[in-house]
């Protein structure tokens, strides 16, 4: 297996992009990545696209061919593959692209993630629920928020986690997002505002839940040798692991541990030859604030049950020991579903290059955790300078 490097990154703005079509959004991220890498376009040998639900959001499947086409690559006839695992779709695209380069099958590959959700109006929430078990969860009236809410309630009961702890995750991520020009929400919020926002699914409130956003992101990967021709600051992907779990929350033996995350993290650390304590910066999947607390625990940043302490003690703040979600995370940078796993990779790359502007942290190794649904899919990627 060859060493894989990120040689270009790009991202659209995130948010309610009323004026832009799906094609426009993807293209803006792709072109930015090409410019960043200094490529013309014809050097790309394959494309992987993470997209959750083009079929429902746009009435359009066959998204990978569509994007290759509108990215001006149709004449090259390169293989273009859509992968999907709900909101972990981006992470899957990154992993497949890594595999394609590491194996020697391709030299330069683009991995993108994209979602356009705002065109369907109020149906977006119901569509997101198709990340969980339609027949045995959604049918009963369970929403994605309510499933995470039941995890949160259990976590509170079992470990003494408080609504204030969850709110602090949101406050931190909003604060970070003020420093990110691509973020959807660029204003600080107070703990009081978060704690008094309306309930979405008790005990989770509006500020515990990431928005559903439009957005796209792209990374260009190359083998180590080739990377050196294009960039003086290659960021290496030292591991990219993926794992699965029961799709329905109710089928899992331990409702407070995402086994897919634990499994993918263990593999990734082993392959990268590092431990949790060596991670200097992380982007994790805070689709709901409780998910960030679980991530601290399941990634090994804290022991099980002690995740909330990290946020209480400021360990995961921008100036803490392990800054988490410097971009603002899904909560404040925006959650463009299929784009999220790639957007996380873009942020970690910028951080390790030293190009993260006002939100720059100091780190040798970075980690990205992308989760699908309530944890039936997880990808953990480790980046190093």
């Amino acid at each position: 297996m060859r060493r894989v490097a990120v040689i270009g990154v790009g991202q659209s703005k995130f948010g309610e992009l009323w004026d832009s079509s799906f094609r426009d959004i993807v293209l803006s991220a792709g072109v930015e990545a090409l410019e960043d890498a200094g490529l013309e376009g014809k050097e790309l040998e394959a494309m992987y696209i993470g997209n959750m639900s083009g079929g429902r959001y746009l009435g359009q499947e066959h998204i990978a061919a569509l994007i290759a086409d509108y990215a001006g690559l149709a004449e090259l006839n390169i293989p273009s593959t859509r992968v999907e695992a709900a909101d972990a779709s981006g992470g899957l695209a990154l992993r497949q692209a890594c595999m394609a380069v590491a194996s020697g099958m391709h030299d330069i590959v683009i991995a993108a993630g994209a979602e356009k959700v705002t065109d369907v109006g109020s149906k977006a929430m119901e569509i997101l629920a198709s990340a969980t078990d339609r027949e045995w969860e959604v049918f009963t009236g369970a929403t994605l928020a309510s499933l995470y809410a039941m995890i949160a309630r259990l976590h509170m009961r079992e470990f003494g986690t408080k609504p204030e702890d969850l709110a602090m995750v949101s406050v931190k991520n909003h604060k970070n997002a003020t420093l990110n020009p691509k973020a959807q929400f660029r204003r600080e919020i107070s703990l009081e505002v978060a704690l008094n926002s309306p309930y979405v699914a008790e005990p989770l409130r509006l500020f515990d839940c990431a928005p559903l956003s439009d957005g796209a992101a792209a990374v260009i990967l190359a083998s180590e040798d080739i990377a050196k021709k294009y960039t003086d600051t290659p960021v290496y992907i030292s591991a990219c692991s993926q794992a699965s779990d029961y799709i329905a929350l109710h089928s899992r033996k331990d409702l407070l541990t995402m086994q897919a995350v634990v499994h993918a993290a263990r593999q990734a650390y082993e392959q990268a030859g590092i431990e949790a304590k060596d991670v200097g910066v992380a982007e994790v999947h805070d689709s709901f604030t409780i998910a960030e607390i679980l991530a601290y625990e399941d990634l090994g940043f804290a022991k099980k049950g002690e995740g909330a302490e990290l946020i209480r003690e400021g360990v995961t703040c921008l100036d803490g020991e392990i800054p988490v979600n410097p971009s603002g995370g899904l909560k404040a940078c925006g959650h463009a579903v299929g784009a999220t796993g790639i957007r996380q990779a873009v942020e970690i790359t910028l951080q390790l290059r030293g190009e993260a502007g006002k939100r720059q942290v100091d780190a040798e190794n970075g980690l990205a955790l992308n989760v699908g649904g309530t944890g039936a899919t997880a990808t953990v990627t480790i980046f190093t300078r």
Partner: protein
Amino acid sequence: MLPRFWRKIKYRYDLVGTKCKNCGNSYYPPRNLCPVCRRKSDIAEMKFSGRGEVISYSVVHEAPEDLKAQKPYVVALIKLEEGPVITSQLVCDPENVRTGMRVKKAFRKYGEEGEAGIIYYGTKFVPDE
């Protein structure tokens, strides 16, 4: 009614799941393959009593279009007395739900299929104490 609903009627209405005779584990919703035994699975149908206990719950305030009329409603993780945990609506005043509460199954209306206006029924749970 759409086939994907009537195909499940027995399982939904009567709380019929499955049991693996190889390892003794029982499953609801039903499984054709036991995740412990896989190809050694020996699956038979099994009717569940419909009694259980609330493990966790949420009061849903932001509901999908077809359930907006019912909000706020309670969704719960219920541990059946035979072992499996299931997701279900709990017909109960949100103020009165608590973790550890005993519940039992009940036959209730679930929703309406948009186009044909067909009404779906299924199992919900009600307090049993």
